[in-house]
């Protein structure tokens, strides 16, 4: 069969290398920027404290890398397949999308995985990033959903910036999968959920490896779960993916979804086949009386909230497809994780065909295109 119309809900984009040049010097040093040194031009990427693994996984290792003019786009992205050439402009993106048979993208910037610097810098940098995306993609919002980066350490400022960025056409809100110091069930986040709900802007929590780090009593040099010997068995990637169930629990058992029934939360790149297990797990906490005994009383079952307000994205997940009716077809979306090494760039059409074999056409289309169009307001 011919190419399907695919919308990837998980596509990564960096900011232009020169964007930081618009900042005062004291701020410029704290965000990704160019730096002229004695032996050449370097790209410097500070990593927000506490987000080291996320930054490494999403945007390549931190520190400074000498600029290779032939590799600029790949270097800016960090974690990048050698076949990809991930530019920042709509024109460059459309060329890459055509190579992989992609019709539309949700653009996820590295800023969503933790913003460096104090509240003042965060406000300025987020505004700069959001303005750049809005300007660059203004004429392409039917094919692109550029995500909103927010100054998460100042909730008043975050809400103001959300309102401003949403007014520019950006969506969704980008959040890390976990912020240990401020889990998403904390009252601190309520103004953001209320604003997102009111503006009908979905929230995404993107997999970033937060759970690749073992408990705080680990040795300081302990390798991340993904990196431990024996490598490459896939168990580590599996763990950090299904580990997102904890974040789902924050939203569900923390009552966030009950208090904000129009809020949509997308758990991105964590795959979806485990979502049925998570539904059963949290429902069991209600049925068994454990939740009530701990002071959690919900009007509906956790699985009801998940089906109503939670989406999960996957690139390859036959279990999610097999369980699509139990999970909910409208709760699943596809994404290719462009241009990351673990992603499907140049394999997207092939892997979609393989994993959806035998599934009715209308259901395939819903998962690989229609759900994303509805959630993110894309038109393809």
């Amino acid at each position, binding site marked *: 069969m011919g190419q399907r119309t695919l919308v990837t809900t998980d596509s990564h984009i960096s900011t232009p290398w020169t964007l930081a040049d618009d900042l005062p010097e004291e701020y410029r040093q704290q965000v990704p920027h160019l730096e002229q040194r004695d032996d050449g031009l370097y790209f410097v990427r500070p990593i927000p404290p506490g987000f080291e693994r996320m930054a490494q996984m999403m945007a390549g290792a931190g520190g400074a890398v000498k600029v290779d003019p032939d590799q600029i786009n790949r270097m800016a992205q960090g974690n990048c397949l050698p076949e990809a050439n991930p530019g920042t402009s709509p024109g460059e993106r459309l060329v890459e999308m055509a190579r992989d048979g992609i019709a539309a993208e949700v653009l996820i910037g590295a800023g969503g995985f933790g913003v460096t610097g104090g509240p003042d810098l965060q406000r300025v940098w987020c505004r700069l990033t959001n303005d750049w995306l809005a300007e660059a993609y203004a004429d392409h919002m039917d094919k692109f959903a550029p995500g909103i980066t927010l100054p998460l350490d100042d909730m008043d400022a975050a809400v103001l910036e959300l309102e401003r960025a949403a007014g520019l056409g950006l969506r969704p809100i980008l959040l890390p999968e976990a912020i240990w110091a401020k889990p998403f069930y904390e009252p601190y986040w309520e103004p953001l959920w209320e604003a997102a709900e009111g503006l009908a802007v979905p929230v995404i929590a993107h997999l970033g490896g937060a759970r690749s780090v073992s408990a705080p009593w680990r040795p300081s040099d302990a390798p991340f779960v993904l990196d431990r010997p024996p490598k490459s*068995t896939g168990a580590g990637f599996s763990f950090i993916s299904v580990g997102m169930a904890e974040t789902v629990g924050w939203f569900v058992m923390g009552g966030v979804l009950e208090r904000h029934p129009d809020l949509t939360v997308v758990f991105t790149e964590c795959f979806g086949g485990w979502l049925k297990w998570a539904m059963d797990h949290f429902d069991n906490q209600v049925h068994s009386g454990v939740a009530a005994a701990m002071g959690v009383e919900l009007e509906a079952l956790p699985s009801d909230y998940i089906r109503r307000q939670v989406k999960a994205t996957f690139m390859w997940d036959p279990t999610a497809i097999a369980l699509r009716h139990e999970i909910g077809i409208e709760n699943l979306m596809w994404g290719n994780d462009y241009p990351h*090494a673990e992603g499907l760039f140049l394999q997207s059409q092939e892997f979609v065909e393989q994993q959806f074999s035998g599934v009715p056409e209308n259901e395939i289309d819903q998962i690989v295109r229609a759900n994303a169009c509805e959630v993110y307001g894309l038109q393809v």
Partner: protein
Amino acid sequence: MAVRRVDSNCQVALPSTLVERLPEEMRDQIDLDGVVGADATPEARLAAMAEDDVAAEVLVPRGGWQPRSDPEVQLRWAQVCNDWFAEAYGGHRDRFAPTITVPVTDPAAAAAELERADELGLRGVALPQVVWDPPYYGEEWDQVWERAAALAQPVVFVSNGAHTAHVTGGKIGGSDHPAAALSATTLEACGMLDPLGTMLRSLNLNPDLVVVLAEASAGWLAWAIPFIDWNYTACRLGLLADSRTALPELPSHYIRRQVKATFDHDPSAVAGRGITGVDVLMWGSGPVMAGVAPTRSSDMLTRQFRNVPADEVDRIVRGNASELFGLGGARVTTNAASGSPAS
């Protein structure tokens, strides 16, 4: 109609009086504060089993590991625990499989104590899901896996909070927000992917080694098995890694052959048995949550097996654990075998 079962994960609190069996100078290194579990005495266990219609139990001790103690104290304490289990349950071997406590920072001592406790009749060696000094992926632990395989002693991994304590800065259960604890239970379960991944190499090297992922709430495993295979064979992240682990077979081969996962109430695990294999799954009650956990005779336990063939239910709730831990007395004529396990 009731079902007679084998509880493959009955977590009991070791009696605090056992500390008195240690030399006086060692006693203050044993920390049993906050250790929660069912009453470990045979009398209490037999009474609970009669009430819950449980035929046999695999006893997993809480308080056995003392990783912050000196190595010699850990060893001595492990010997005390194992000796007490052997004394207390020596006359009930058909109905109880008390697992072995070993030091967790000295693999050589652990291997030696495993062998000693094996001779005492204990079955299964209980280990925390993650240790660091040294880590399981270190070659120091190979002697333990080899010894366990040779003695047909299953290695039982039990959660030690290695993946659940981020929100509270390292303190297990340290948050006063109920959503923290309720959500973290998912990591108690799927955190077993950590030792599972670590052990794939050893499962290949030791085909007779069996690993039990206790309190794993196994529904996630049905998702993980094909996902792990895909990572191993097709995902470019794995293929690009610089020290790819060579396994002659797919990871799923070793999981289905040598891994067991215990669960209490998990309809997804039951529904996913076609992927995991029935022989991978074992029912077990898991940690005690005083006053809030359902009893082992709860209707929830039987409801999850509705419409499952009786022989498969019997494997999961009795047969698999009975065979693995040699619980001969558990080979009773069960209601499950009569074909009405879920009625």
